[in-house]
């Protein structure tokens, strides 16, 4: 059953440009996919490691800016991808070392501050980042001679990366490393007593999270062929977190659903109203107050509840 659903979803995704109708929708699908990659990256920390970051747009943006600068320097696309991702990893490591000085709320505050530093550099260090005007690039890569210039081919390339990201997440969740990350979230002291290096596990989780954020940032750059400080603003970090939380943290499907919802709402909402930020804030408040565990687990809970409502109540496991 699960396999059939998975296969159907895969076929649906691959053939999407043929049935969705119009390049506009193909482009939106691409956006959903790279934001989903971003959300999956954020979810590694926010969901599985229990460390909520509000500075991930910084890492997303570092990849995009690094890519744009290297491309502007006249290097090839392979070089761009390699250096941009390496830069993102280095900055992820620096961010991790600093942010892991705190846990819980301390971690949140430090990531906010780090994200704002990146924003400050993007906005004010005009000689490098061109300030508010942003950096424009021309041309998308053509791996193996296949041009990604058309929306369709770019969609398929993004889909390929997206599937890789999902696969890597599935492997991560099932792996002993994934289990130890969840262990540091639920019982850091016991993990420490069992001989696990809690700090190192969190550090590696941060790197994994930063890596996929960087990949998403690079796709964002190629999609828009433009990056500006808006991409690294606190609002962008908050949007990524909203994707994770609205879909459901620490699930594979949650961040993808969340990315779908946020991108669709952003595009639909901005067609009808100017006030996207207000809507974003209101959704945030409503979800946190009324469906704190997210839409996917919330819906699963409701479905379970309706299917077991007439049976005797099982003992609820305590968290």
């Amino acid at each position, binding site marked *: 059953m699960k396999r059939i659903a998975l296969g159907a979803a895969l076929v649906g995704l691959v053939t999407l440009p043929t049935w969705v109708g119009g390049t506009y929708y193909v482009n939106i699908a691409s956006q959903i996919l790279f934001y989903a990659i971003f959300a999956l990256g954020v979810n590694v920390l926010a969901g599985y490691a229990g460390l909520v970051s509000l500075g991930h747009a910084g890492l997303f943006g570092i990849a995009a800016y690094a890519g744009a600068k290297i491309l502007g320097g006249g290097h090839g696309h392979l070089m761009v991808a390699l250096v941009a991702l390496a830069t993102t990893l280095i900055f992820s490591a620096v961010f991790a070392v*600093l942010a892991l000085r705190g846990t819980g709320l301390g971690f949140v505050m*430090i990531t906010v*501050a780090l994200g*704002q530093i990146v924003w400050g*550099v993007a*906005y*004010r260090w*005009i000689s490098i980042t061109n300030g508010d005007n942003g950096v424009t690039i021309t041309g998308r890569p053509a791996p193996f001679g296949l041009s990604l210039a058309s929306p369709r081919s770019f969609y398929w390339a993004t889909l390929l990366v997206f599937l890789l990201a999902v696969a890597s997440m599935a492997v991560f969740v099932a792996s002993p490393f994934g289990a130890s990350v969840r262990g540091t979230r639920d019982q850091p002291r016991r993990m420490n007593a069992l001989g696990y290096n809690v700090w190192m596990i969190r550090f590696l989780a941060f790197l994994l999270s930063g890596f996929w954020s960087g990949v998403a940032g690079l796709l964002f750059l190629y999609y828009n062929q433009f990056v500006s400080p808006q991409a690294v603003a606190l609002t962008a970090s908050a949007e990524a977190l909203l994707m994770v939380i609205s879909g459901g943290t620490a699930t594979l499907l949650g961040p993808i659903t969340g990315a779908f919802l946020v991108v669709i709402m952003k595009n639909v909402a901005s067609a009808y109203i100017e006030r996207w930020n207000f809507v974003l804030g*209101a959704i945030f408040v409503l979800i946190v*107050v009324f469906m704190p565990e997210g839409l996917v687990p919330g819906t699963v809970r409701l479905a379970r509840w309706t299917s077991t409502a007439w049976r005797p109540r099982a003992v609820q496991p305590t968290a």
Partner: protein
Amino acid sequence: MNVWVVLAVNSVTLGGLLFLLSAGFSLVFGLMKIPNLTHGSFFMLGAYLATSLIAAGFGFWTAAVVGGLLVALFGGIVERFILRRLAGAELAQVLVTLGLSFMVADVCLMVWTGDPIRIATPDGLRGATSVGGVGFPTYRLAVSLIAVVVAAALWALLDRTRLGAMIRAGVDDAEMARVTGIRVSRLFTIVFCLGAWLAGVAGVIGGPILSVYPGLDGEMLPLALVVVILGGSGSLLGSLVGSFVVGFLYNFGQAMFPELAYVVLFLPMLIVLVVRPQGLFGRPAV
């Protein structure tokens, strides 16, 4: 030489404003364990409300007090009706305050449009005052003075009154304070409103210097965060020292490395985090 004096005065002024902003943030964080991400919005909202009050014919100081009180009222509503429901769920509180800050920013944009609004310097404080042969802008001196008075008043409140003793007890150990019969939940409301009021007043007082514009909230919030990380949460002295450090760094940084001023600002925070994660005057986490 004169340039450095002017920079120093500006730094003290900004430090004073930051103290008004971050003292409330620090108390709320220390007592309630909420990094209140709407705090920058309180600052901006106070300033915007004051522009409307002044346009309606009220004086500057009336506008400052009333604007502050309206923000305090808003803060009280947020605390009572939203944050109270989420007691104990710290992450949820972070997200709600963040969501609220987006909503406030967008409403301000809608009501007061995107153009920067300058609040006129109040009568009697325009021009310069000569101190020891050097002319200082009178208004900036006044702002520094207000910050000193507020700092003294807050210190007296926290250190010399019964309410202050209860707040300190709550910061140190909220559960023990509750056991001894202190109504900590009421303290939460009082401290939250006090913090919102201070932030709102700071916004109004900062108006003639900074003027009011969309994005002011997002610019002030990180400064408050830096001050609190630097000084240590829940410590008034920490906020005071942190505010002036940040004030000086910001102004001197802007004069010396204009493109990197915003980054220079965060350096001491990073150093403190590495060397002393609980902040200069904070207590180590148990």
